[in-house]
């Protein structure tokens, strides 16, 4: 079933993507075709099949709970476009 324009807008909102009107229409068509293709999976009866959650085989291995030095604040901030007083700077959240 093809997606509606409203559904594409809803998905884009959830994904925090600003789309132009042209993009919305293009993605509506392309996503509909892809979703149509992947719905092929519904033809399989999987009621007795457990899900595979991850790619790993064994238990995940955790390291010992010891403190190790990490990256310094300056290094972590070095790729941000706006910083102030050793912090990321963002537009105001509260008026």
């Amino acid at each position, binding site marked *: 079933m093809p997606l509606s324009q409203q*559904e*594409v807008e809803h*998905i*884009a909102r*959830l*994904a*925090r*993507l*600003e*789309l132009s009107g042209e*993009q919305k229409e293009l*993605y509506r068509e*392309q*996503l509909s*075709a*892809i*979703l149509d*293709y*992947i*719905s*092929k*999976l*519904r033809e*399989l009866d*999987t009621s007795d*099949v*457990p*899900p*595979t*959650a*991850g*790619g*790993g*085989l*064994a238990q*995940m*291995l*955790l*390291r010992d709970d010891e403190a190790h030095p990490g*990256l310094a604040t300056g*290094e*972590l901030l*070095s*790729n*941000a*476009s*706006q910083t102030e007083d050793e912090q*990321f700077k*963002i*537009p*105001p*959240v509260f008026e």
Partner: protein
Amino acid sequence: MIMSNLTDLTLSEMRAGLETRKFSSRELVGAALDRISRLDPALHAFLHVASETALQQADQADKDPRSSKPLHGIPVAVKDVLMVEGLPCTCGSKILEGFIAPYTATAVKRLKEAGAVIIGKTNTDEFAMGSSTENSAYGVTHNPWDGTRVPGGSSGGSAAAAAARYVPAALGTDTGGSVRQPASLCGVTGLKTTYGRVSRYGLVAFGSSLDTVGAIGRTAEDVAAVFSIMAGRDEKDATSADVAVPSMDLGGAQNAAPLRGLKVGVPKEYFIRGIQPEVEEKTRAAVAMLKDLGAEVREISLPHTEYALPVYYIIAPAEASANLARYDGIRYGPRAQADSLWDVFFKTRGQKFGAEVARRIMIGTYALSAGYYEAYYGQAQKVRTLIKRDFENAFRDVDVIAAPTAPTTAFKIGEHVNEPLAMYLEDVFTLPANLAGVPGISFNVGFDKNHLPIGMQLIGPHFREDLLLQVTHAYQGVTDWHKQQPRI
């Protein structure tokens, strides 16, 4: 030895030459940089060439000519999704334009500790999403065998760099075929490792249950040298497996039947309608060659193969939509100007992500959204179990599986642009191994009528990269497809 020949050497020949002081690391690295500066303006395998630091590292290596480090002074390239401290890491995306890696990925760190000289960062489809490098925001890489064609992807830059003989080996990553398919299209040898075999620390995440780091080179021997150094447990990646890495003795050429006792399975589901006839023909000829080398060949079935593509295109985008949520313009990368935080997110992501990444984020978001989760993601995880079981069953009867790597040879640049489903079909034979977490290798087994390389892949049980490399090495001992080089 004349300098232009240095780049023709394999990694093991380079090591021997450095040890006997036939040439220096500076000469070796200089020859690689020279070749790149001559040929790469047309090929565009590299997004960033680290000439200065590479030459410094080479000089450092030359101060210690007696070093026993296995990659001492040897130039290696790294796909631009793995971080190398101090070098750019863009993932082929505008959203990471200008990003300088603050630390080094474990896989790269191990290569550097083994003496390797990192020569630069190679082109990739944006966030490794694609099969042609056409999704790179910084321009396509051209196939060294035919510049009007794609090199495959997403590790197309690394495969082209190895095929063009810039470097003897390059790192790639494989989430759905991104090492094997470009290796196939560029006529080189590419190893996709078992999930958890090589640490993902410092690899920019795409599909976290599928992502693997692999190596591309001209020969199984060279790929084995790189693989054995990067593999093994790393505390910084909780999914990194604590499984011993066996010694990479690939066996000599003196044995007339080196594959005696090996059982090779050929899955009937991998010879489907739409496969290029020459691909099938050369794959079957290569399987016959394995038989000549002593292997026993039988037909097998992997019955859920046709579901791998739809499973993958739910799971990988779902994981990607979560992983790529971090690109919001705040902590790294360029930020779109806007008055509210909300608009910063929307505009930065809307403007900086390319079309394929946006498509996959939306598919993943949809598949995980309220009301659709069970029907899409839940069902995909269950069918993933069935695909995994197919492999478990097969490996009760055979040691390795042999199949085509990709349904076609290199296609024309632009041929599949704006046809996402047609592009996805490129990976139809490589995705199942990622869903099952098993290793695979692709190597050149001949050429089509346009003299474009054809790859065959071998798939093995978990953690049996050694077996895949041994079989490939045996094949390369009696054939010379891997020695042919493109005229560029």
